[in-house]
């Protein structure tokens, strides 16, 4: 349990903020595993929500869909967008395990490695153009390497992402300051305390493409608890930094995931 990770905010199997190399549904009895997730991140000036499904095929291919909602609530009025203004983004993901097995390859250092892509489409092209964003659609590409060091009960992940996304795409893609792809790093480290409990931290660097507001890296401290083989709950303290001129967006991340 938990060695396959949970659902990231973009729908792919992994940590909360970063995709891992594991294919979701891993460890299930059949050849195909699936799961659904619902996530809320409650921030001082915004609320972020994500819901989605993921399908893993033969521990090789993962297909995922997530709908993200970024609710500006009362802050929307202060941004000139109107109270309760909401950005929505659909994320379609595909991930392919290339080589390695994070769990079983305990006799060698090589990690499990996967490549993936995320197609993102945001429903607010007008606002995105107004704040200096170039596109309301974009594609992220990533390589993820995950290793479980069973001898130490430790899990490590490193993901390199090529992206143009502003705040993960919630504020569009490319911008007045930079319109090119840049390489970003996402790291996760966790300790398995029991069969059911994984605690750890994640860090995700981000581009800073928009002139109107600074974009910060993301960080979280998480605890993922497997209620049973089919249900897990993740709670985290997430620090998403400044978002659209509102500073220090730190809050509680709560996610529930059901597997089939």
């Amino acid at each position, binding site marked *: 349990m938990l060695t396959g990770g949970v659902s990231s905010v973009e729908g792919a199997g992994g940590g909360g903020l970063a995709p891992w190399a594991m294919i979701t549904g891993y*460890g*299930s*009895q*059949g050849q195909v595993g699936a799961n659904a997730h619902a996530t809320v991140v409650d921030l001082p000036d915004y609320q972020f929500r994500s819901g989605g499904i993921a399908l893993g095929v033969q*521990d090789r291919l993962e297909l995922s869909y997530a709908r993200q909602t970024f609710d500006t609530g009362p802050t929307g009025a202060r941004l000139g967008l109107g109270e309760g203004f909401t950005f929505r983004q659909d994320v379609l993901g595909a991930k392919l395990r290339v080589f390695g*097995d994070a*769990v*079983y*390859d*305990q*006799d*060698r250092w090589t990690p499990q490695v996967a490549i993936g892509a995320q197609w993102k489409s945001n429903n607010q092209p007008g606002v995105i153009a107004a704040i200096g964003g170039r596109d309301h659609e974009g594609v992220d590409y990533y390589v993820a390497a995950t290793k479980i*060091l*069973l*001898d130490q*009960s430790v899990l490590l992940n490193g993901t390199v992402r090529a992206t143009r996304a502003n705040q993960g795409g919630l504020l569009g893609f490319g911008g007045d300051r930079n319109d090119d792809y840049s390489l970003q790093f996402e790291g996760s480290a966790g300790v*398995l*305390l*029991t*069969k059911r409990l994984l605690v750890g931290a994640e860090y995700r660097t981000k581009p800073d493409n928009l002139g109107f507001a600074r974009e910060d890296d993301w960080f979280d401290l998480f605890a993922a608890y497997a209620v049973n083989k089919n249900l897990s709950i993740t709670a985290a303290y997430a620090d998403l930094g400044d978002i659209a001129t509102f500073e220090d967006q730190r809050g509680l991340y709560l996610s529930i995931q059901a597997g089939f």
Partner: protein
Amino acid sequence: MRPIFALSLAAVLILPLPAAAQPTPWAHPGEEAIDPYAVDDANAGAAPMAEDAVFEALGGVQGVSRIIDDLVDRSVRDPRLEEIFKPTDLARLRRTLKEQVCFILGGPCAYSGRDMAAAHKDLGITTAEFNALVENLQGAMDDAGVPFRAQNRLLARLAPMKGDVVER
């Protein structure tokens, strides 16, 4: 071919014996007859641990023996595994598993079983079945009070055997 081949050949010439009526390096009384093979600790599939912390955490020779008996008991009545365990010589399985785990944990045991590929050949074991066995082992260690981290240190030695055990 290693020099051991000569030993195997000699063993073949001694056969046929009645089904393991006398102890041989590869079979004990009460176990079904088995084709002779070269007995070698290397067949255990993992090097022994240098220190005995995990061996002690499992309760030494007697603790390992109880945990393996529990593992086999659980697996025999596990609907996911009964097809594999029903036709198995359980007396031999218990003995060789105890030897194997004791040896890998650095305990005072030699391993007399076959290597993992030979022992599981043609059983058609799946990844799900391999995982089910691991779960049963975890359950047996939980009930024996073995700390989680010590359990993982043993599992780290066993996990790479998946490649030789799983066939489909």
